[in-house]
């Protein structure tokens, strides 16, 4: 009986300690350079890793791209540092190349550092990190420029990248400049470069007829990468006519055109801008424009037929042109007070003028008496 008990005890002990415990391998990633994991074509990332072999195990380490963390499930990193042997604790670094290893285009790649025990291929561990490949967008293609009246119509091919955030319109009156040298101005939407959203066309307004503008466009993606600029195109805005105008029907700023002799005269352009930007933004202004367009053609026909009246019309329009220029020079947000101030000033001037006339008339009457 004691023999049986002793045998049982021995068996239990053997079960508990007789089979050696599974040795543990622990893999960890200590540092990744660059720390944000973002790479572009031509870049490399360096992954510093560490393997702890608690019982001094030896085996093989592999650094794989994608896969699921098990050995040979992904693509082995091509650099020689992507594979090697270990025996006991070890630390090392592996270089991952954007060109050689991240070859599926822009996106995220999971990199696994895997250590496998030589004695038991089931005994392995891994640690992972993510690298992002994000190349700058290619230069936009297919830019075309159609001319318009004080405007240019731009269009281009839709960009193949799906993370395009903004387009930039670079313009200048000189040709063949570098990106930073395009400093054109005068367009309604501002100086070069004009920032717009992700779209395939754009109308540049507020340009000067007869001036050639050179245009290039660039794009920026979600992560801030900027593309090279597109090929340069150019266009010269000109006066444009539809069928009615081509065949001699009148349109536009009738009286001013008649007075200044050309639809493109600087004064006429100022008045047109004033009409579009100031008058048409209010109900009263729109009513005035409607009234003007009803009676303007008749007045213009009358003015253009009499040279004396043409000069008189210019004189009469001069204060309006100056006032319009002043108001248009004010930033858009402060134009309402500027219009009010201008109206007040005009009122005061008229009152002073009338008062002077009255005084002179009274003086003349008193003198006569």
């Amino acid at each position, binding site marked *: 009986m004691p023999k049986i008990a002793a045998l049982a005890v021995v068996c239990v002990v053997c079960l508990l300690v007789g089979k050696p415990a599974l040795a543990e391998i622990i893999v960890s990633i200590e540092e990744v350079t660059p720390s944000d994991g973002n790479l572009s074509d031509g870049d490399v990332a360096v992954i510093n890793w560490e393997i702890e072999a608690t019982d001094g195990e030896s085996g093989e380490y592999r650094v794989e791209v994608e896969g699921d963390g098990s050995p040979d499930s992904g693509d082995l990193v091509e650099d020689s540092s992507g594979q090697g042997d270990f025996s006991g604790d070890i630390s090392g670094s592996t270089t991952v190349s954007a060109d050689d290893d991240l070859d599926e285009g822009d996106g995220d790649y999971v990199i696994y550092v895997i250590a496998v025990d030589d004695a038991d291929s089931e005994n392995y561990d891994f640690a992972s990190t993510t690298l992002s490949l994000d190349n700058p967008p290619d230069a936009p293609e297919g830019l075309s420029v159609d*001319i318009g*009246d004080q405007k240019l119509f731009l269009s281009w091919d839709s960009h193949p990248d799906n993370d395009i955030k903004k387009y930039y319109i670079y313009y200048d009156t000189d040709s063949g400049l570098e990106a930073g040298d395009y400093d054109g101005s005068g367009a309604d939407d501002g100086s070069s470069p004009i920032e717009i959203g992700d779209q395939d066309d754009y*109308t540049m307004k507020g340009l000067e007829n007869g001036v050639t503008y050179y245009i290039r466009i660039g794009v920026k993606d979600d992560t801030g990468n900027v593309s090279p600029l597109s090929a340069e195109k150019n266009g010269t805005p*000109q006066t444009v006519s*539809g*069928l009615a105008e*081509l065949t*001699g029907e009148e349109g536009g700023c009738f009286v001013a055109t008649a007075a200044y002799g050309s639809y493109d005269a600087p004064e006429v352009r100022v008045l047109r801008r004033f009409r579009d930007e100031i008058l048409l933004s209010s109900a009263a202004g729109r009513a005035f424009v409607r009234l003007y367009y009803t009676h303007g053609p008749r007045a213009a026909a009358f003015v253009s037929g009499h040279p004396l009246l043409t000069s008189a019309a210019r004189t009469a329009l001069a204060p309006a042109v100056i006032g319009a220029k002043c108001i248009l020079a004010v930033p858009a947000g402060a134009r309402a007070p500027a219009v009010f101030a201008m109206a007040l000033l005009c009122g005061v001037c008229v009152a002073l003028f009338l008062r002077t006339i009255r005084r002179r008339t009274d003086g003349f009457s008193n003198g006569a008496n």
Partner: protein
Amino acid sequence: MRTALVLSTILAVCLAVLPQDALADSPINFSSSLRVGFMLPETEEFEEVYDQNYIFIYGLNFGWKIVKDLELVGEAAYGFKDGKGIAESGEETGEEYRLHVVPAMLGVLYRLKFYENQPVVPYLGGGGNYTYYYEGRKEDSEQDIDGGKWGYDGFAGLEILLDNMDKRAAGAMETEFGINNVYLFYEFRYQTMDDFEDEGLDLTSTIHYMGLLFEY
């Protein structure tokens, strides 16, 4: 879609004015036609701006028989065309234009009808017209120009009586709607629209119309 809507409106108006209680043997006093066609302006500039040489138009025509085969006719039509403006240099530009035309005509028409149920009826006529036009620029509505042009027109056409093809349906049309005859017609028209050779826009055109004519 817009064309279908306009045509269905014209049809509804046409049916609304038809005498519902007319009898099969009632005298024929009126006619109405629904028509579609191509207006071909003669001016060379039209094709420069609008790329093609025609405007698709559709219209409605009413006639009142003064005497047996002589009718007083009134007509209104509408059409539009999209195009691109021409720069001073003569280049085509990106400025988009749309021209609307509404020709209206008042005139007389004479049918060469020699006997009842004549299968093919030639006709001719003429009158005066007024065409309202509106040409607008997409990007700058203040450049829009509109106006009207007076003119005269002459036309000739052929009507094919459809009643002979299905006499039963023709009978039903008479009893149900009071429509005595239905014709398919083709009409050629020459229409001056130039304020009698005044300066400015000249929309003088030849027009080819097809449509259905109802006599009641």
